[in-house]
């Protein structure tokens, strides 16, 4: 049975193909069109999925969309109603678009599917619609190794729900409670992201990274937190909350917060994207991060009471917040927590397809072994050594073909020398993070590398962290929790023995000074609060990468690498060998390992290219 799942028209459009209950292909449209977080229809991703499995649309049993467009239209309309007459301008300007996008949706979807080059869409092909939060719940529960689990989904907004508390058992899914729009944790966080000069739907992870530079002993942090918890929202013990809508003009304006009101409340101007980051910005980021964590923890406790289960599946955009996930893990409310590699809207595509397979067609669920479940991430396009060879020929590139052992040994040697390595292997990752096949690696012990990678390779803010990618068997010796974290979902604290004493005035240092303080034996991956967003790798799930880190450990004694995604600022992860080679040549990378080929920058032909950015 073949089912195509589609997530579109919100942000990060994607497609996924489920064959007999297994996700065999999935990709985000942004990777093909190079338009980050693309929000249209994922034509090329859908075509990739079908081509990957050798199918035509006539071979599909159903196409499933990841939300209910008319219910979303209903929400938009009622939101306008609730704000009438203040919503006049928004209603008149936005309604035609909503009608086109949401109301006549079946026709639109059929037209888009027919436009794929994979053949005509049979008239009898069922178009199904899964609820937004059911798609999220299915995307995390069905691939998880749990027979039975509590499921928590939190995001900006689905149709109406912004938070859903569910229970999964076998193939069945039950929605227990919901919190409805506009009282949304995702929107709250996005509003602060915008206020602090970062983008909505894409800048939230910067806000999270910035929060690590805040000081929770500062009176300003306490004032900000009090303002958020007491004035801007009401939080109940069970985690449910209500936003004070006078601060969030969502219903009658396209802005998600009121500039003047917020500036008065926090005693600071809204930060423009090009303005420098100050301590007050970090303190505000920390305050909202702590509020988010507090809501997540309270809701999880409530869900535990409701279900009595010991496992938790967590999805939705909020589940991308690895610091909140880490806090949830440390609280020990649930024995095991499972977060998928694509918890956001992109994950809705496989989720919708899996939900239809089990709930609409009633097919039984095959429980995945944990090791098998961990592999459901490299679901995108993969390219052979012949494809790499073509790039070599096209650009006159100089690459050396090496056997696997030699390739690994040379790469480990380069890393030990302090070089920055682009690593391009196998299938592309599905989801926002690079998880071992499209990465940039560096030596985590080298104090200069975080800054160097941020400024010379990724061309982004220097405070942005690198993440450790660590051998699964060594994780417990390095971090406070050694449980597997295959999708980089949890933030964990570095063990004390690797930390260095901090200066007495550390809390009062500026962001830049904190960044340059020598904090641990692994400065490239340690955030200023001694945490790191950990990814664990086992030999069974990615043998080549496991071999590389093992070789690096054999040379240096260090069982991990500093890792970040293989892309540059505001661009999606590289997809083709051509993109990988271009990125290698246009950035400050020293070495590129692509398939079995090893490229050294100094040996490449000179490219007459202006550097992409200059942040120095």
């Amino acid at each position, binding site marked *: 049975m073949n089912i195509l799942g589609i997530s579109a028209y919100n942000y990060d459009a994607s497609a996924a193909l489920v064959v007999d209950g297994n996700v065999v292909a999935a990709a985000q449209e942004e990777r093909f069109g190079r338009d980050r977080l693309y929000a249209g229809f994922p034509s090329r991703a859908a075509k990739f999925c079908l081509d990957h499995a050798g199918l035509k649309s006539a071979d599909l049993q159903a196409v499933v*969309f990841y939300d*209910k*467009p008319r219910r979303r239209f209903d929400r938009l309309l009622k939101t306008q109603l609730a*704000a*009438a007459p203040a919503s006049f301008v928004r209603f008149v300007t936005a309604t035609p678009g909503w009608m086109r996008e949401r109301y006549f949706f079946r026709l639109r979807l059929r037209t888009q599917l027919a436009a794929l080059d994979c053949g005509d869409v049979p008239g009898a092909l069922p178009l199904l619609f899964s609820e937004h939060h059911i798609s999220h719940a299915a995307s995390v529960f069905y691939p998880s190794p749990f027979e039975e689990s509590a499921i928590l989904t939190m995001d900006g907004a689905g149709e109406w729900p912004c*938070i859903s508390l569910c229970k999964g058992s076998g193939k069945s899914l039950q929605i227990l*409670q919901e919190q409805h729009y506009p009282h949304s944790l995702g929107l709250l966080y996005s509003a602060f992201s915008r206020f602090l000069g970062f983008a909505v739907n894409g800048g939230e992870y910067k806000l999270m990274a910035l929060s690590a530079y805040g000081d929770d002993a500062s009176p300003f942090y306490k004032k900000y937190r009090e303002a958020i918890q007491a004035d801007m929202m*009401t939080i109940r013990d069970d985690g449910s*909350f209500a936003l004070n809508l006078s601060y969030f003009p969502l219903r009658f304006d396209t802005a998600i917060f009121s500039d003047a009101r917020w500036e008065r409340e926090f005693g600071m101007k809204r930060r423009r994207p090009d303005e420098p980051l100050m301590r007050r910005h970090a303190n505000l980021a920390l305050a909202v991060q702590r509020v988010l964590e507090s809501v997540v923890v309270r809701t999880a406790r409530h869900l535990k009471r409701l279900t009595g289960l010991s496992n938790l599946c967590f999805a939705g955009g909020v589940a991308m917040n690895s610091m909140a996930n880490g806090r949830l893990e440390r609280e020990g409310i649930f024995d095991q927590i499972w977060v998928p590699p694509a918890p956001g809207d992109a994950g809705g595509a496989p989720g919708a397809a899996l939900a239809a397979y089990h709930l609409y067609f009633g097919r039984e669920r095959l429980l995945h072994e944990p090791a098998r479940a961990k592999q459901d991430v490299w679901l995108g396009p993969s390219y052979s050594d012949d494809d790499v060879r073509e790039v070599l020929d096209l650009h006159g590139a100089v690459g050396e073909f090496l056997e696997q052992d030699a390739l690994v040994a040379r790469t480990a040697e380069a890393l030990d020398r302090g070089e920055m390595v682009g690593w391009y292997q196998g299938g592309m990752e599905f989801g926002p993070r690079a998880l071992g096949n499209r990465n940039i690696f560096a030596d985590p012990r080298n104090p200069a590398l975080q800054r160097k990678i941020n400024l010379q390779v990724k061309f982004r803010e220097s405070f942005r962290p690198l993440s450790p990618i660590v051998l699964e068997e060594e994780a417990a010796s390095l971090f406070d929790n050694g449980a597997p974290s295959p999708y980089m979902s949890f933030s964990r604290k570095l063990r004390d023995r690797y930390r260095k004493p901090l200066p007495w005035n550390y809390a009062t240092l500026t962001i830049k000074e904190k960044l340059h303080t020598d904090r641990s034996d692994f400065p490239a991956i340690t955030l200023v609060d001694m945490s790191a967003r950990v990814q664990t790798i086992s030999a069974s799930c990615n043998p080549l990468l496991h071999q590389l880190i093992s070789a690096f450990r054999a040379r240096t004694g260090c069982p991990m690498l500093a890792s970040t995604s293989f892309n540059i600022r505001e661009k999606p992860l590289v997809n083709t060998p051509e993109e990988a080679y271009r990125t290698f040549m246009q950035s400050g990378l020293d070495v590129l390992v692509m398939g079995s080929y090893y490229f050294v920058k100094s040996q490449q032909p000179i490219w007459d290219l202006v550097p992409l950015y200059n942040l120095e």
Partner: protein
Amino acid sequence: MRKRKRFINLMAVSLLSIGLSLLGLLFMQRKFFYVGLGVMLLALLSPWFGRKLGRPVISFLDGLFFVLLRLLLSIFYALVMVPWGLVYRLRSAAKDRQHRKNASLFHNRNHTCVPGDFERNW
């Protein structure tokens, strides 16, 4: 693609000639009818002419549609949305008070997913 564009241009020109013919009928002016017919014939015979005339007609119709739609929406908003909105707000306020009493702001749903859920897009 080109065929489709030509078809759209012809449709626009047809609308123009029908409009002219109607004007002719309304004001009993035969020359409007002949001009409309001539324009239509020229557009059929010469794709260049169809394109030249079709584009401005399409732009004009787009603009007219844009204005009329917003005008209609404004009337709809004033006559339907505002009074309905007031009732809706009163009802919501009553619900909110109930929520405040119950402490939790979660909505109980207790729904187990069934196949029928997937067939509706609402």
